[in-house]
């Protein structure tokens, strides 16, 4: 195979480094950005993630890739403004740049092995964003993919059209019943599994509690269950162990063993507890930021 000449540094091409070339506000605090990072765009695959750092004083924040365009050299991310760093990123505009953008990180996991399978994809809230490229990959491989996505209410639901285009069947739930089925994604999932257990696997991406409930629901049906973990990271390359989870009594790192993992043996109770480690510090950081910005 003749490889096209590839750039060897992030600096090639005379383009501004890690520039936000497109920004779309999907919902009031959920934003989508295409960031110029040609080397990453060329390599990143569904399920892998990047880390960004807005500026010199910033944290390193992991986000799973939503889409990538190797020709344009861009990587698409979608995030909800939940803390200081995502808030700060959300306030940036087209033409601005982030200081650091690192990837691809995490293992690429070709779950189906390319065979024509039957898959259920479950996405909750912002977790629909990383589910989309997986569903697209299954779809283009010729798999039958039933998607179940949910949000608290209609005005928080993202990527409906994209998910619809990539799925064989799309089911929508909202907690408040403002759109689609009133209730949780697990209710639809249970119906599907009661009808048939002839699925290769279920892939669930969303808040930890949703992934835990899905895992617990699926287990007795004997269908394999995968989840994608977004635990707190510092480096994202296996160096610090902040993102560790207990899987069947063994320590695994979400950054290099995952982020996608079989869900059956994950200690979600411990994982959810670990996600609260810096709540107090993050609150202080947010307050300081808002005060500084005069908000």
């Amino acid at each position: 195979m003749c490889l096209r000449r590839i750039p060897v540094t992030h600096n090639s091409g005379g383009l501004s480094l890690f520039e936000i070339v497109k920004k779309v506000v999907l919902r009031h605090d959920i934003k989508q950005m295409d960031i110029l990072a040609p080397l990453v765009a060329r390599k990143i695959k569904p399920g892998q993630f990047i880390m960004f750092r807005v500026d010199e004083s910033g944290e390193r924040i992991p986000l799973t890739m939503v889409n990538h365009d190797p020709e344009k050299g861009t990587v698409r991310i979608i995030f909800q403004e939940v803390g200081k760093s995502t808030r700060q990123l959300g306030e940036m505009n087209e033409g601005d740049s982030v200081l650091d953008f690192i990837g691809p990180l995490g293992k690429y996991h070709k779950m189906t092995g390319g065979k024509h399978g039957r898959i259920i994809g479950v996405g909750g809230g912002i977790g629909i964003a990383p589910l989309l490229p997986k569903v697209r990959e299954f779809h283009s491989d010729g798999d039958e993919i039933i998607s179940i996505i949910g949000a608290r209410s209609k005005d928080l639901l993202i990527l409906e059209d994209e998910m619809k285009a990539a799925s064989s069947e799309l089911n929508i739930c909202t907690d408040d019943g403002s759109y689609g089925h009133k209730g949780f994604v697990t209710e639809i999932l249970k119906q599907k599994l009661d009808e048939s257990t002839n699925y290769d696997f279920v892939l669930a991406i969303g808040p930890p509690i949703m992934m835990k409930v899905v895992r617990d629901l699926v287990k007795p049906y004997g269908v394999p269950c995968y989840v994608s973990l977004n635990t707190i990271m510092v480096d994202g390359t296996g160096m610090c162990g902040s993102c560790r989870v207990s899987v069947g009594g063994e320590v695994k790192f979400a950054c290099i063993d995952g982020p996608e993992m079989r869900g059956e043996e994950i200690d979600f109770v411990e994982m959810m507890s670990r996600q609260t480690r810096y709540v107090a510090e993050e609150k202080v950081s947010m307050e300081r930021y808002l005060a500084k910005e005069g908000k």
Partner: protein
Amino acid sequence: MDDKARKLAGIKQKEKTPMPEQEAKVRAHNFKEVPYGYTAEMAIEEAWRCTQCKNQPCVAGCPVEIDIPGFIAAIQQGDFREGINIIKRTNALPAVCGRVCPQEEQCEKFCIRGIKGEPVAIGRLERFAADWEAEQGEADLPEIAPSNGKKVAVIGAGPGGMTCGGDLVAMGYDVTVFEAFHASGGVLRYGIPEFRLPKDIVSRETDYLARMGVKFEYNMVVGNVLTIEEMREQGFEAFFVATGAGLPWFMNLKGEGLNGVYSANEFLTRANLMKAYDPKNYDTPTWVGSKTAVVGGGNVAMDSARTAMRLGSEHVYIVYRRALEQMPARNEEIHHAQQEGIEFLLLQNPLEILDNGEGWVGGMRCIRMELGEPDASGRRRPVPIEGSEFILEVDGVVIAIGNGANPLFIDATPGLKVNKWGNILADDKGRTSLEGVFAGGDIVIGAATVIEAMGAGKIAARAIDEYLSGEAGDWSPELGE
């Protein structure tokens, strides 16, 4: 005083000229560097303790082969510029080495002044020369050979990679250092705390290499973003893999996943690389308990304990399963930790970390140990004393028992052979199973020291030069298992 009088005074002085340092009680609560460094007068006084003996045993003890008597002779004459230039002929990171090398195990171990009294304070003099130069403004560059146009890639901007890069650039190679983090230095940046090695110094040494012509590319996770094969297509003809030992070990204890339990790597990376000790100016959070147990006895354990104290932990314990004499940490680090009030719980080992009922650390169940027969390392093996279990009251734990080999680059590089622990197999020149690919430092020998990594970088630079000049013969390294 003339030279004769100085020489006589130097010979009479049995002990090292003392190093002025921050008072322990004060420094235990700040991140400023502990030793202030010698003044010019102190440096000259100490330099005259060197007798310029013929055999120069110190040089053989230096992994980067510094002309130690040469630079000390220059300091004796007050010619500090000449002193630092002599050091820089073989060592591109003198301000780092002067601070973090275990000189007592290397150059100073062989100094004849150490037979009756203390050896010459070679490390302190090296630091003095480097700091003196920094105060003078821009440093002199060493002699750099004309460009030969050959491209070499160094993977990892830690001490090994930076040394190799500096040496190769001086030989005329076109060197690019690829670093996964957003900053250079590797363990010098993320691991060793500010109070032991100020990060401005790491930046200064990096700038120096950049002025020499070394190119640095950050945010490059080689293996994932670029493979060795792709880099070959880009014209790179040789590679030095110096990715370090970044995969923290845990103990597989019950409760290790509790909140308040850190690996030393996480604890130190938050504080050092991400500057979490300065929350007013940096966003990365950290947390310390009021009583912290640091498990382990190496330099990293000392760094973690002293960092925990500076972050506000009131009681900090080193929990180590052997005795003080077996502790792998440098004596200087142990002394500094003791002076600062770190409590040493020796011959004790954790069994379980207890939950406080809310998912956070609520204590650590430990057992007392005694020393039995020597084990494979030659050290007496610690054996648990039955019935001696007790609960150590702590609310924070840092696990500092070492690091394994990080698999990220290796998994992405087919054909690169590793041993059963995942360390890259390399011969004494750093040659690996892949032609043109050299490796050295912690990724080859397991967790070791900064200077050993630098030594490996130096050896690899020489071997790469041989290889690319076609003087090396066939690529047939003997790799072992």
